[in-house]
Protein backbone atom coordinates (compact mmCIF):
# COMPACT_ATOMS: atom_id res chain seq x y z
CA UNK A 1 0.00 0.00 0.00
CA UNK A 2 1.00 3.50 -0.31
CA UNK A 3 3.20 4.45 2.48
CA UNK A 4 3.11 8.00 1.49
CA UNK A 5 0.14 10.08 2.23
CA UNK A 6 -1.19 12.24 -0.46
CA UNK A 7 -0.25 15.20 1.58
CA UNK A 8 2.66 17.22 0.51
CA UNK A 9 5.89 15.58 1.17
CA UNK A 10 8.44 18.15 0.72
CA UNK A 11 11.27 15.97 1.65
CA UNK A 12 12.31 14.03 -1.31
CA UNK A 13 14.68 11.75 0.41
CA UNK A 14 12.10 10.91 2.92
CA UNK A 15 9.83 9.81 0.22
CA UNK A 16 12.50 7.90 -1.44
CA UNK A 17 13.11 6.10 1.77
CA UNK A 18 9.47 5.49 2.26
CA UNK A 19 9.02 4.24 -1.20
CA UNK A 20 11.90 1.94 -0.71
CA UNK A 21 10.36 0.53 2.40
CA UNK A 22 6.97 0.00 1.08
CA UNK A 23 8.22 -1.30 -2.11
CA UNK A 24 5.79 1.09 -3.54
CA UNK A 25 7.96 2.88 -5.89
CA UNK A 26 5.17 5.19 -6.59
CA UNK A 27 6.78 8.16 -5.15
CA UNK A 28 10.31 7.16 -4.98
CA UNK A 29 12.49 10.00 -5.70
CA UNK A 30 15.84 8.54 -5.91
CA UNK A 31 18.23 10.13 -3.60
CA UNK A 32 20.54 10.82 -6.39
CA UNK A 33 18.25 13.49 -7.62
CA UNK A 34 19.51 16.33 -5.61
CA UNK A 35 17.75 19.31 -6.94
CA UNK A 36 16.67 22.27 -5.07
CA UNK A 37 13.10 22.69 -5.74
CA UNK A 38 9.92 22.80 -3.90
CA UNK A 39 6.38 22.05 -4.44
CA UNK A 40 5.71 25.50 -5.68
CA UNK A 41 7.72 24.91 -8.73
CA UNK A 42 5.28 22.48 -9.99
CA UNK A 43 2.41 23.57 -12.02
CA UNK A 44 -0.14 20.98 -11.21
CA UNK A 45 -2.80 22.55 -13.30
CA UNK A 46 -0.75 22.10 -16.34
CA UNK A 47 0.01 18.61 -15.36
CA UNK A 48 -3.57 17.57 -15.00
CA UNK A 49 -4.66 19.37 -18.05
CA UNK A 50 -2.28 17.50 -20.18
CA UNK A 51 -3.30 14.22 -18.90
CA UNK A 52 -6.93 14.81 -19.27
CA UNK A 53 -6.55 14.52 -22.93
CA UNK A 54 -5.81 10.94 -22.58
CA UNK A 55 -8.04 8.13 -21.73
CA UNK A 56 -10.34 8.65 -18.91
CA UNK A 57 -10.00 5.76 -16.69
CA UNK A 58 -13.05 4.18 -15.16
CA UNK A 59 -13.43 4.69 -11.52
CA UNK A 60 -13.21 1.20 -10.21
CA UNK A 61 -12.38 -0.11 -6.84
CA UNK A 62 -8.76 -0.38 -7.13
CA UNK A 63 -6.11 -1.65 -4.98
CA UNK A 64 -3.54 1.01 -5.37
CA UNK A 65 -0.76 -1.31 -4.47
CA UNK A 66 -1.54 -3.46 -7.39
CA UNK A 67 -1.75 -0.60 -9.73
CA UNK A 68 1.49 0.80 -8.71
CA UNK A 69 3.11 -2.49 -9.17
CA UNK A 70 1.93 -2.41 -12.69
CA UNK A 71 3.07 1.09 -13.11
CA UNK A 72 6.42 0.26 -11.86
CA UNK A 73 6.71 -2.43 -14.39
CA UNK A 74 5.76 -0.09 -17.11
CA UNK A 75 7.98 2.61 -15.93
CA UNK A 76 10.84 0.25 -15.66
CA UNK A 77 10.38 -1.03 -19.11
CA UNK A 78 9.86 2.45 -20.40
CA UNK A 79 12.82 3.81 -18.66
CA UNK A 80 15.24 1.21 -19.66
CA UNK A 81 14.37 1.55 -23.20
CA UNK A 82 14.87 5.20 -23.39
CA UNK A 83 17.88 5.92 -21.43
CA UNK A 84 19.92 7.17 -24.22
CA UNK A 85 17.33 9.50 -25.48
CA UNK A 86 17.14 13.17 -25.32
CA UNK A 87 18.69 14.98 -22.53
CA UNK A 88 15.97 16.74 -20.75
CA UNK A 89 16.68 19.99 -19.17
CA UNK A 90 17.00 20.46 -15.55
CA UNK A 91 13.54 21.84 -15.42
CA UNK A 92 12.23 18.61 -16.51
CA UNK A 93 13.68 17.03 -13.52
CA UNK A 94 11.97 19.27 -11.14
CA UNK A 95 10.85 16.86 -8.62
CA UNK A 96 7.26 17.05 -9.14
CA UNK A 97 5.57 16.52 -5.94
CA UNK A 98 3.92 13.37 -6.69
CA UNK A 99 1.05 14.45 -4.67
CA UNK A 100 -1.36 14.18 -7.45
CA UNK A 101 0.19 11.03 -8.62
CA UNK A 102 0.35 9.54 -5.23
CA UNK A 103 -3.27 10.06 -4.71
CA UNK A 104 -4.63 6.60 -4.91
CA UNK A 105 -7.91 7.62 -6.38
CA UNK A 106 -8.81 5.93 -9.54
CA UNK A 107 -8.93 9.05 -11.59
CA UNK A 108 -5.39 9.86 -11.12
CA UNK A 109 -4.19 6.40 -11.63
CA UNK A 110 -3.61 6.77 -15.25
CA UNK A 111 -1.88 9.98 -14.72
CA UNK A 112 0.48 8.46 -12.34
CA UNK A 113 1.14 5.68 -14.66
CA UNK A 114 1.72 8.03 -17.46
CA UNK A 115 3.88 10.10 -15.26
CA UNK A 116 5.97 7.17 -14.30
CA UNK A 117 6.49 5.93 -17.73
CA UNK A 118 7.32 9.31 -18.97
CA UNK A 119 9.50 9.94 -16.07
CA UNK A 120 11.30 6.79 -16.76
CA UNK A 121 11.95 7.86 -20.24
CA UNK A 122 12.98 11.30 -19.33
CA UNK A 123 15.10 10.46 -16.48
CA UNK A 124 17.04 7.97 -18.37
CA UNK A 125 18.55 10.70 -20.37
CA UNK A 126 18.90 13.16 -17.59
CA UNK A 127 20.80 11.33 -15.01
CA UNK A 128 23.80 9.27 -15.39
CA UNK A 129 22.84 6.28 -17.26
CA UNK A 130 23.71 3.90 -14.50
CA UNK A 131 21.92 5.91 -11.95
CA UNK A 132 19.00 6.26 -14.19
CA UNK A 133 19.06 2.63 -14.94
CA UNK A 134 19.19 1.82 -11.30
CA UNK A 135 16.61 4.31 -10.44
CA UNK A 136 14.39 3.14 -13.17
CA UNK A 137 14.92 -0.41 -12.35
CA UNK A 138 14.28 0.09 -8.71
CA UNK A 139 12.10 2.99 -8.70
CA UNK A 140 9.94 3.56 -11.61
CA UNK A 141 8.53 6.43 -9.77
CA UNK A 142 11.72 8.33 -9.89
CA UNK A 143 10.84 9.31 -13.26
CA UNK A 144 7.60 10.56 -11.94
CA UNK A 145 9.36 13.60 -10.86
CA UNK A 146 10.91 14.07 -14.19
CA UNK A 147 7.72 13.39 -15.98
CA UNK A 148 5.73 15.74 -13.97
CA UNK A 149 8.29 18.37 -14.20
CA UNK A 150 8.27 17.82 -17.84
CA UNK A 151 4.66 18.48 -18.06
CA UNK A 152 5.26 22.00 -17.14
CA UNK A 153 7.77 22.39 -19.82
CA UNK A 154 6.36 23.36 -23.13
CA UNK A 155 9.38 22.25 -24.99
CA UNK A 156 8.67 18.63 -24.88
CA UNK A 157 6.87 17.96 -28.03
CA UNK A 158 8.53 14.69 -28.27
CA UNK A 159 7.70 14.09 -24.71
CA UNK A 160 4.09 14.84 -25.23
CA UNK A 161 3.89 12.25 -27.88
CA UNK A 162 5.71 9.92 -25.62
CA UNK A 163 3.39 11.01 -22.94
CA UNK A 164 0.40 10.21 -24.97
CA UNK A 165 1.87 6.94 -25.87
CA UNK A 166 2.78 5.95 -22.41
CA UNK A 167 -0.42 7.25 -21.12
CA UNK A 168 -2.22 5.11 -23.54
CA UNK A 169 -0.08 2.22 -22.64
CA UNK A 170 -0.53 2.89 -19.02
CA UNK A 171 -4.23 3.39 -19.18
CA UNK A 172 -4.77 0.20 -21.01
CA UNK A 173 -2.41 -1.42 -18.61
CA UNK A 174 -4.13 0.07 -15.67
CA UNK A 175 -7.51 -1.12 -16.72
CA UNK A 176 -6.00 -4.53 -16.78
CA UNK A 177 -4.06 -3.72 -13.71
CA UNK A 178 -7.29 -3.20 -11.92
CA UNK A 179 -8.21 -6.79 -12.42
CA UNK A 180 -7.36 -7.54 -8.88
CA UNK A 181 -9.97 -5.24 -7.52
CA UNK A 182 -11.41 -6.49 -4.30
CA UNK A 183 -14.88 -7.71 -4.84
CA UNK A 184 -17.12 -8.38 -1.97
CA UNK A 185 -19.04 -11.47 -2.86
CA UNK A 186 -22.21 -10.82 -0.99
CA UNK A 187 -24.80 -13.55 -0.93
CA UNK A 188 -26.88 -11.60 -3.37
CA UNK A 189 -23.99 -11.17 -5.71
CA UNK A 190 -23.10 -14.77 -5.42
CA UNK A 191 -26.65 -15.78 -6.08
CA UNK A 192 -26.63 -13.85 -9.31
CA UNK A 193 -23.34 -15.41 -10.16
CA UNK A 194 -24.68 -18.87 -9.61
CA UNK A 195 -27.75 -18.04 -11.63
CA UNK A 196 -25.59 -16.92 -14.47
CA UNK A 197 -23.46 -20.00 -14.25
CA UNK A 198 -26.43 -22.29 -14.19
CA UNK A 199 -27.91 -20.48 -17.11
CA UNK A 200 -24.80 -21.07 -19.11
CA UNK A 201 -24.12 -24.47 -17.78
CA UNK A 202 -21.29 -25.07 -15.36
CA UNK A 203 -18.99 -26.28 -18.06
CA UNK A 204 -19.84 -23.63 -20.52
CA UNK A 205 -19.76 -20.86 -18.00
CA UNK A 206 -17.19 -18.52 -19.30
CA UNK A 207 -16.31 -15.50 -17.22
CA UNK A 208 -17.03 -13.06 -19.98
CA UNK A 209 -20.46 -14.50 -20.56
CA UNK A 210 -21.14 -14.62 -16.88
CA UNK A 211 -20.17 -11.03 -16.64
CA UNK A 212 -22.57 -10.19 -19.40
CA UNK A 213 -25.40 -12.01 -17.82
CA UNK A 214 -24.78 -10.57 -14.43
CA UNK A 215 -24.48 -7.16 -15.91
CA UNK A 216 -22.66 -5.67 -13.02
CA UNK A 217 -20.30 -2.99 -14.00
CA UNK A 218 -18.04 -3.11 -11.07
CA UNK A 219 -17.02 -6.67 -11.75
CA UNK A 220 -14.16 -7.49 -13.98
CA UNK A 221 -13.69 -10.63 -15.92
CA UNK A 222 -10.89 -11.56 -13.63
CA UNK A 223 -13.03 -11.23 -10.53
CA UNK A 224 -15.51 -13.55 -12.09
CA UNK A 225 -12.87 -15.93 -13.24
CA UNK A 226 -11.36 -16.36 -9.85
CA UNK A 227 -14.74 -16.67 -8.21
CA UNK A 228 -15.72 -19.23 -10.79
CA UNK A 229 -12.64 -21.23 -10.05
CA UNK A 230 -13.47 -21.29 -6.38
CA UNK A 231 -17.03 -22.17 -7.09
CA UNK A 232 -16.08 -25.06 -9.32
CA UNK A 233 -13.73 -26.53 -6.81
CA UNK A 234 -16.34 -26.19 -4.13
CA UNK A 235 -18.86 -27.93 -6.33
CA UNK A 236 -16.52 -30.79 -6.96
CA UNK A 237 -16.13 -31.19 -3.27
CA UNK A 238 -19.85 -31.16 -2.72
CA UNK A 239 -20.44 -33.59 -5.48
CA UNK A 240 -17.87 -35.97 -4.15
CA UNK A 241 -19.52 -35.88 -0.80
CA UNK A 242 -22.87 -36.30 -2.31
CA UNK A 243 -21.76 -39.29 -4.30
CA UNK A 244 -20.38 -40.92 -1.26
CA UNK A 245 -23.48 -40.25 0.70
CA UNK A 246 -25.60 -41.49 -2.12
CA UNK A 247 -23.73 -44.72 -2.47
CA UNK A 248 -23.84 -45.16 1.24
CA UNK A 249 -27.54 -44.55 1.21
CA UNK A 250 -28.01 -47.08 -1.52
CA UNK A 251 -26.41 -49.73 0.54
CA UNK A 252 -28.63 -48.74 3.32
CA UNK A 253 -31.58 -49.04 1.05
CA UNK A 254 -30.58 -52.46 0.01
CA UNK A 255 -30.34 -53.43 3.55
CA UNK A 256 -33.65 -51.90 4.41
CA UNK A 257 -35.27 -53.68 1.54
CA UNK A 258 -33.77 -56.93 2.62
CA UNK A 259 -34.07 -56.45 6.34
CA UNK A 260 -37.67 -55.67 6.73
CA UNK A 261 -37.60 -56.62 10.35
CA UNK A 262 -37.20 -53.11 11.41
CA UNK A 263 -39.66 -50.87 9.76
CA UNK A 264 -38.31 -47.90 11.45
CA UNK A 265 -35.87 -46.97 8.83
CA UNK A 266 -37.55 -47.42 5.54
CA UNK A 267 -36.06 -44.33 4.07
CA UNK A 268 -32.80 -44.26 2.39
CA UNK A 269 -31.44 -41.15 3.80
CA UNK A 270 -30.64 -42.41 7.19
CA UNK A 271 -27.03 -42.20 6.51
CA UNK A 272 -27.28 -38.70 5.40
CA UNK A 273 -27.89 -37.84 8.92
CA UNK A 274 -25.01 -39.07 10.95
CA UNK A 275 -23.25 -35.81 10.87
CA UNK A 276 -25.96 -34.23 12.83
CA UNK A 277 -24.80 -36.20 15.71
CA UNK A 278 -26.64 -36.42 18.90
CA UNK A 279 -28.86 -33.52 19.57
CA UNK A 280 -31.16 -34.82 22.22
CA UNK A 281 -34.26 -33.22 20.80
CA UNK A 282 -34.36 -34.37 17.25
CA UNK A 283 -35.26 -31.71 14.80
CA UNK A 284 -38.78 -31.84 13.39
CA UNK A 285 -39.19 -33.91 10.31
CA UNK A 286 -40.21 -31.38 7.80
CA UNK A 287 -37.82 -28.56 8.05
CA UNK A 288 -35.33 -31.29 8.28
CA UNK A 289 -34.90 -32.02 4.62
CA UNK A 290 -33.33 -28.70 4.06
CA UNK A 291 -31.39 -28.99 7.21
CA UNK A 292 -30.29 -32.44 6.34
CA UNK A 293 -29.07 -31.10 3.22
CA UNK A 294 -27.09 -28.39 4.72
CA UNK A 295 -26.09 -30.10 7.88
CA UNK A 296 -23.91 -32.86 6.67
CA UNK A 297 -21.94 -30.28 4.93
CA UNK A 298 -21.61 -28.33 8.06
CA UNK A 299 -19.05 -30.12 10.02
CA UNK A 300 -19.90 -29.70 13.59
CA UNK A 301 -17.17 -27.94 15.39
CA UNK A 302 -14.97 -28.10 12.40
CA UNK A 303 -13.03 -24.92 12.47
CA UNK A 304 -12.39 -24.57 8.82
CA UNK A 305 -15.91 -24.95 7.75
CA UNK A 306 -17.30 -21.80 6.41
CA UNK A 307 -20.79 -22.05 7.67
CA UNK A 308 -21.90 -18.93 5.94
CA UNK A 309 -21.03 -20.40 2.64
CA UNK A 310 -22.37 -23.80 3.23
CA UNK A 311 -26.03 -23.04 3.33
CA UNK A 312 -25.70 -21.03 0.22
CA UNK A 313 -23.80 -23.07 -2.19
CA UNK A 314 -25.01 -26.58 -1.83
CA UNK A 315 -28.70 -25.85 -1.92
CA UNK A 316 -28.16 -23.50 -4.76
CA UNK A 317 -26.54 -25.85 -7.03
CA UNK A 318 -27.67 -29.13 -5.72
CA UNK A 319 -31.30 -28.37 -5.41
CA UNK A 320 -31.73 -27.29 -8.98
CA UNK A 321 -30.16 -30.52 -9.97
CA UNK A 322 -33.35 -32.09 -9.01
CA UNK A 323 -33.94 -35.48 -7.55
CA UNK A 324 -30.49 -36.67 -8.33
CA UNK A 325 -29.32 -36.77 -4.77
CA UNK A 326 -31.47 -39.45 -3.31
CA UNK A 327 -30.90 -38.37 0.17
CA UNK A 328 -32.48 -35.01 -0.10
CA UNK A 329 -36.18 -35.26 0.15
CA UNK A 330 -37.28 -38.13 2.33
CA UNK A 331 -37.99 -36.93 5.76
CA UNK A 332 -36.61 -38.78 8.69
CA UNK A 333 -38.49 -41.73 9.93
CA UNK A 334 -41.22 -41.24 12.43
CA UNK A 335 -39.27 -42.60 15.31
CA UNK A 336 -37.01 -39.71 15.60
CA UNK A 337 -34.88 -40.59 18.55
CA UNK A 338 -34.05 -43.89 17.03
CA UNK A 339 -33.52 -42.27 13.74
CA UNK A 340 -31.16 -39.77 15.09
CA UNK A 341 -29.32 -41.89 17.46
CA UNK A 342 -29.09 -45.04 15.58
CA UNK A 343 -27.21 -43.76 12.63
CA UNK A 344 -25.22 -41.63 14.90
CA UNK A 345 -24.19 -44.61 16.83
CA UNK A 346 -23.07 -46.34 13.79
CA UNK A 347 -21.50 -43.47 12.11
CA UNK A 348 -18.89 -42.90 14.71
CA UNK A 349 -18.23 -46.53 14.66
CA UNK A 350 -16.14 -45.79 11.72
CA UNK A 351 -14.24 -43.20 13.49
CA UNK A 352 -12.12 -45.22 15.78
CA UNK A 353 -11.65 -47.92 13.28
CA UNK A 354 -9.92 -45.56 11.08
CA UNK A 355 -7.66 -44.60 13.82
CA UNK A 356 -8.80 -41.08 13.92
CA UNK A 357 -9.22 -39.32 17.17
CA UNK A 358 -12.74 -38.79 18.20
CA UNK A 359 -14.74 -36.41 16.27
CA UNK A 360 -18.15 -35.78 17.55
CA UNK A 361 -19.81 -35.29 14.22
CA UNK A 362 -18.30 -37.36 11.53
CA UNK A 363 -18.91 -36.18 8.06
CA UNK A 364 -20.25 -38.68 5.63
CA UNK A 365 -17.56 -37.88 3.22
CA UNK A 366 -14.88 -38.18 5.75
CA UNK A 367 -16.26 -41.06 7.57
CA UNK A 368 -17.53 -43.34 4.90
CA UNK A 369 -14.85 -43.30 2.39
CA UNK A 370 -14.99 -47.00 1.91
CA UNK A 371 -18.19 -48.20 3.38
CA UNK A 372 -17.71 -51.87 2.76
CA UNK A 373 -14.42 -52.00 4.49
CA UNK A 374 -14.51 -55.51 5.70
CA UNK A 375 -14.10 -56.19 9.28
CA UNK A 376 -14.38 -52.63 10.28
CA UNK A 377 -17.99 -51.92 9.81
CA UNK A 378 -19.66 -52.52 13.07
CA UNK A 379 -23.06 -52.92 11.56
CA UNK A 380 -23.66 -55.82 9.33
CA UNK A 381 -26.22 -54.08 7.26
CA UNK A 382 -23.62 -52.47 5.19
CA UNK A 383 -22.77 -55.63 3.55
CA UNK A 384 -24.82 -55.03 0.47
CA UNK A 385 -27.20 -57.70 -0.53
CA UNK A 386 -26.21 -57.20 -4.08
CA UNK A 387 -28.24 -59.78 -5.85
CA UNK A 388 -25.80 -60.04 -8.64
CA UNK A 389 -22.92 -60.90 -6.40
CA UNK A 390 -24.23 -64.23 -5.38
CA UNK A 391 -21.11 -66.04 -6.27
CA UNK A 392 -19.09 -64.00 -3.90
CA UNK A 393 -21.70 -64.32 -1.26
CA UNK A 394 -19.69 -66.81 0.68
CA UNK A 395 -16.86 -64.47 1.17
CA UNK A 396 -19.19 -61.77 2.13
CA UNK A 397 -20.88 -63.96 4.60
CA UNK A 398 -17.64 -64.67 6.25
CA UNK A 399 -16.88 -61.04 6.40
CA UNK A 400 -20.30 -60.32 7.64
CA UNK A 401 -19.77 -62.49 10.63
CA UNK A 402 -16.78 -60.50 11.60
CA UNK A 403 -18.52 -57.29 11.16
CA UNK A 404 -21.17 -58.00 13.65
CA UNK A 405 -18.87 -56.77 16.29
CA UNK A 406 -16.05 -54.35 16.18
CA UNK A 407 -12.71 -55.96 16.20
CA UNK A 408 -10.63 -56.04 19.25
CA UNK A 409 -7.80 -54.26 17.52
CA UNK A 410 -9.92 -51.37 16.59
CA UNK A 411 -11.19 -51.00 20.08
CA UNK A 412 -7.71 -51.28 21.39
CA UNK A 413 -6.57 -48.62 19.01
CA UNK A 414 -9.34 -46.31 20.04
CA UNK A 415 -8.68 -46.82 23.68
CA UNK A 416 -5.01 -46.31 23.21
CA UNK A 417 -5.79 -43.12 21.46
CA UNK A 418 -7.77 -41.82 24.37
CA UNK A 419 -5.15 -42.82 26.84
CA UNK A 420 -2.39 -41.18 24.97
CA UNK A 421 -4.24 -38.03 24.14
CA UNK A 422 -6.39 -37.11 27.07
CA UNK A 423 -6.93 -33.64 25.76
CA UNK A 424 -9.07 -34.87 22.91
CA UNK A 425 -12.68 -33.82 23.09
CA UNK A 426 -15.20 -36.39 24.13
CA UNK A 427 -16.58 -38.16 21.10
CA UNK A 428 -20.13 -38.04 22.31
CA UNK A 429 -20.06 -35.20 24.71
CA UNK A 430 -22.20 -36.89 27.26
CA UNK A 431 -22.85 -35.05 30.43
CA UNK A 432 -20.11 -36.13 32.76
CA UNK A 433 -20.98 -37.91 35.94
CA UNK A 434 -20.57 -36.10 39.17
CA UNK A 435 -17.22 -36.96 40.65
CA UNK A 436 -18.57 -37.17 44.12
CA UNK A 437 -21.21 -39.65 43.32
CA UNK A 438 -18.76 -41.78 41.45
CA UNK A 439 -16.33 -41.65 44.31
CA UNK A 440 -19.06 -42.43 46.76
CA UNK A 441 -20.16 -45.36 44.77
CA UNK A 442 -16.67 -46.64 44.44
CA UNK A 443 -16.07 -46.39 48.11
CA UNK A 444 -19.19 -48.36 48.70
CA UNK A 445 -17.82 -50.97 46.44
CA UNK A 446 -14.58 -50.92 48.30
CA UNK A 447 -12.47 -49.42 45.57
CA UNK A 448 -9.88 -46.75 46.03
CA UNK A 449 -9.90 -44.44 43.10
CA UNK A 450 -6.35 -43.61 42.55
CA UNK A 451 -5.45 -44.61 39.04
CA UNK A 452 -4.27 -48.06 39.80
CA UNK A 453 -0.60 -48.63 39.37
CA UNK A 454 -1.31 -51.93 37.83
CA UNK A 455 -4.43 -53.37 36.30
Amino acid at each position, binding site marked *: MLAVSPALCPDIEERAGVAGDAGMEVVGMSSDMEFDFSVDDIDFGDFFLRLEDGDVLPDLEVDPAEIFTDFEAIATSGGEGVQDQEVPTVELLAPTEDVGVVDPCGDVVGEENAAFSEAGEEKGGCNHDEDAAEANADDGADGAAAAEAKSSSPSSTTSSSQEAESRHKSSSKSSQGKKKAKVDWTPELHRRFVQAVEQLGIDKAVPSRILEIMGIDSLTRHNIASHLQKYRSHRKHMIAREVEAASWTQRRQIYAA*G*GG*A*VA*KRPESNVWAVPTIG*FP*PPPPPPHPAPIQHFGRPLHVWGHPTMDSSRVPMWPPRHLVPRGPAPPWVPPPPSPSD*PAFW*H*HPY*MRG*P*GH*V*PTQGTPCMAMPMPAARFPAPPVPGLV*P*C*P*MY*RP*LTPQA*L*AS*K*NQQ*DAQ*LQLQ*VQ*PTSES*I*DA*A*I*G*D*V*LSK*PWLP*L*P*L*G*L*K*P*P*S*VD*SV*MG*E*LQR*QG*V*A*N*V*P*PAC*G
Partner: protein
Amino acid sequence: MGDSSSSASYIRMVHHLIEKCICFNLNKEECMEALEKHANINPVVTSTVWKELEKENKEFFETYNKDRAERNIEAETMQRIQKMLSDAAASKGSDDDES
Protein backbone atom coordinates in the same frame (compact mmCIF):
# COMPACT_ATOMS: atom_id res chain seq x y z
CA MET B 1 -4.83 -41.65 48.38
CA GLY B 2 -5.85 -40.09 45.12
CA ASP B 3 -6.35 -36.44 45.58
CA SER B 4 -9.49 -35.01 44.20
CA SER B 5 -8.05 -33.62 41.03
CA SER B 6 -6.45 -36.83 40.00
CA SER B 7 -9.62 -38.68 40.83
CA ALA B 8 -11.58 -36.25 38.79
CA SER B 9 -9.26 -36.56 35.86
CA TYR B 10 -9.27 -40.30 36.17
CA ILE B 11 -13.00 -40.35 36.12
CA ARG B 12 -12.98 -38.08 33.15
CA MET B 13 -10.66 -40.46 31.40
CA VAL B 14 -12.86 -43.39 32.11
CA HIS B 15 -15.80 -41.38 30.90
CA HIS B 16 -13.95 -40.66 27.70
CA LEU B 17 -13.11 -44.28 27.23
CA ILE B 18 -16.67 -45.30 27.81
CA GLU B 19 -17.79 -42.86 25.19
CA LYS B 20 -15.36 -44.43 22.79
CA CYS B 21 -16.80 -47.81 23.53
CA ILE B 22 -20.25 -46.49 22.93
CA CYS B 23 -19.05 -45.41 19.55
CA PHE B 24 -18.30 -49.02 18.98
CA ASN B 25 -21.74 -49.94 20.15
CA LEU B 26 -20.53 -51.91 23.08
CA ASN B 27 -22.76 -52.55 26.01
CA LYS B 28 -21.74 -52.02 29.58
CA GLU B 29 -20.30 -55.45 30.06
CA GLU B 30 -18.38 -55.39 26.86
CA CYS B 31 -17.10 -51.99 27.77
CA MET B 32 -15.94 -53.13 31.16
CA GLU B 33 -14.14 -55.98 29.55
CA ALA B 34 -12.54 -53.85 26.89
CA LEU B 35 -11.37 -51.20 29.28
CA GLU B 36 -9.93 -53.72 31.60
CA LYS B 37 -8.19 -55.51 28.83
CA HIS B 38 -6.83 -52.55 26.95
CA ALA B 39 -6.56 -49.87 29.55
CA ASN B 40 -6.21 -51.67 32.83
CA ILE B 41 -9.22 -50.10 34.30
CA ASN B 42 -10.94 -51.81 37.11
CA PRO B 43 -14.24 -53.02 35.75
CA VAL B 44 -15.87 -51.88 38.92
CA VAL B 45 -14.76 -48.39 38.14
CA THR B 46 -15.95 -48.70 34.57
CA SER B 47 -19.25 -50.00 35.72
CA THR B 48 -19.67 -47.25 38.25
CA VAL B 49 -18.82 -44.53 35.82
CA TRP B 50 -21.09 -46.08 33.26
CA LYS B 51 -23.94 -46.14 35.68
CA GLU B 52 -23.36 -42.58 36.66
CA LEU B 53 -23.24 -41.57 33.05
CA GLU B 54 -26.45 -43.33 32.49
CA LYS B 55 -28.00 -41.40 35.30
CA GLU B 56 -26.81 -38.14 33.91
CA ASN B 57 -27.76 -38.92 30.37
CA LYS B 58 -30.85 -41.00 30.72
CA GLU B 59 -32.33 -40.22 27.38
CA PHE B 60 -29.20 -41.00 25.54
CA PHE B 61 -28.75 -44.33 27.13
CA GLU B 62 -32.35 -45.23 26.66
CA THR B 63 -32.05 -44.72 23.00
CA TYR B 64 -28.67 -46.31 22.88
CA ASN B 65 -29.89 -49.45 24.48
CA LYS B 66 -32.95 -49.54 22.33
CA ASP B 67 -30.82 -49.11 19.27
CA ARG B 68 -28.54 -51.86 20.28
CA ALA B 69 -31.41 -54.16 20.76
CA GLU B 70 -32.78 -53.27 17.39
CA ARG B 71 -29.45 -53.63 15.82
CA ASN B 72 -29.11 -57.06 17.18
CA ILE B 73 -32.43 -58.03 15.75
CA GLU B 74 -31.47 -56.55 12.44
CA ALA B 75 -28.17 -58.31 12.50
CA GLU B 76 -29.89 -61.53 13.17
CA THR B 77 -32.32 -60.98 10.38
CA MET B 78 -29.53 -60.02 8.07
CA GLN B 79 -27.71 -63.14 8.87
CA ARG B 80 -30.74 -65.20 8.21
CA ILE B 81 -31.25 -63.54 4.90
CA GLN B 82 -27.62 -63.83 4.03
CA LYS B 83 -27.79 -67.46 4.82
CA MET B 84 -30.80 -67.89 2.64
CA LEU B 85 -29.11 -66.10 -0.18
CA SER B 86 -25.93 -68.02 0.16
CA ASP B 87 -27.88 -71.21 0.21
CA ALA B 88 -29.61 -70.14 -2.93
CA ALA B 89 -26.32 -69.10 -4.43
CA ALA B 90 -24.74 -72.34 -3.46
CA SER B 91 -27.44 -74.34 -5.12
CA LYS B 92 -27.37 -72.09 -8.13
CA GLY B 93 -23.64 -72.25 -8.24
CA SER B 94 -23.66 -75.98 -8.16
CA ASP B 95 -26.10 -75.93 -11.02
CA ASP B 96 -23.75 -73.75 -12.97
CA ASP B 97 -20.86 -75.95 -12.14
CA GLU B 98 -22.59 -78.93 -13.39
CA SER B 99 -23.61 -77.37 -16.64
